């Protein structure tokens, strides 16, 4: 199981790096789905099978499909890929990459320097998760519902096409032509 965990971690990291560096949006999304599936494998091995299922259903299923639909609506095509290659010039990304790599090295050093604590490896059953979700974290569930409602209303309002309104006094009969 440990070997599978490390393989999944490697796949997740490599495909995430590919997501960030791709020029084509659709290719990047496919790599993102691979990364999410690898993350789901890690969840499963670590003992959270319910989270693995949710990760596949909601992230890889729902959210990525939403991205694909929006890309289809925008219809970027080959012109977008060329523009993207132009934007990804080396002078633009080398300094942020260096700085964030230094930050990453610091975080990794701090984690390595702290005492090793092995994972329990026992499964936390979905029943326990659900029980805790609807007793201890009930307020959080209600707030999440409000957040989703706000998300629906906001998305509908923002994505609507604005009508071009002209005052009726300004509308003459030949104005349309």
């Amino acid at each position, binding site marked *: 199981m440990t070997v599978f965990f490390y393989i999944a971690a490697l796949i997740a990291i490599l495909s995430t790096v590919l997501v960030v560096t791709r020029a084509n949006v659709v290719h990047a999304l496919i790599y993102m789905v691979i990364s999410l599936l690898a993350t789901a494998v890690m969840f499963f091995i670590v003992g959270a099978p319910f989270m693995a299922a949710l990760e596949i259903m909601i992230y890889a299923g729902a959210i990525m499909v939403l991205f694909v639909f929006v890309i289809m609506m925008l219809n970027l095509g080959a012109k977008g890929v060329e523009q993207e290659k132009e934007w990804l010039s080396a002078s633009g990304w080398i300094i942020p*990459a260096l700085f964030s790599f230094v930050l990453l090295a610091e975080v990794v050093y701090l984690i390595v320097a702290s005492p090793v604590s092995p994972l329990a490896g026992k499964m936390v059953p979905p029943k326990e998760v659900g029980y805790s979700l609807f007793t201890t*974290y009930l307020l959080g569930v209600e707030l999440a519902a409000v957040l989703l409602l706000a998300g629906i209303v906001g998305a509908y309002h923002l994505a609507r096409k604005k009508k071009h309104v002209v005052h009726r006094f300004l509308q003459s009969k030949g104005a349309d032509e």
Partner: protein
Amino acid sequence: MSEISLNTGLIIASILFFTGFLGVMIRRNILFMLISVEIMLNAAGLAFVFAGARWHAPDGQIMLIFILTMAAAEVAVGLALMIQVYQKFKTLDSDAVSNMRG
């Protein structure tokens, strides 16, 4: 290598998080920035689940459920905003919206 430790899990999560962070900084396309934010949220959820598995408690998994909910709402609103930007400026360049002209 013999057993998975919390430290390894946290290192994996932080590598994923910094990859997403780098993506937000180096990309100019709004769509890629949104995907990178998703990577960062996912990495945070990964850290929560590892920590929950360490203490054998369901709390980490519950935090991941909340993160999933938040990511779904955020993506819906973010993509809607992106469609508006594309209709108005005919580009996905984030520099195009640097001036707030109303």
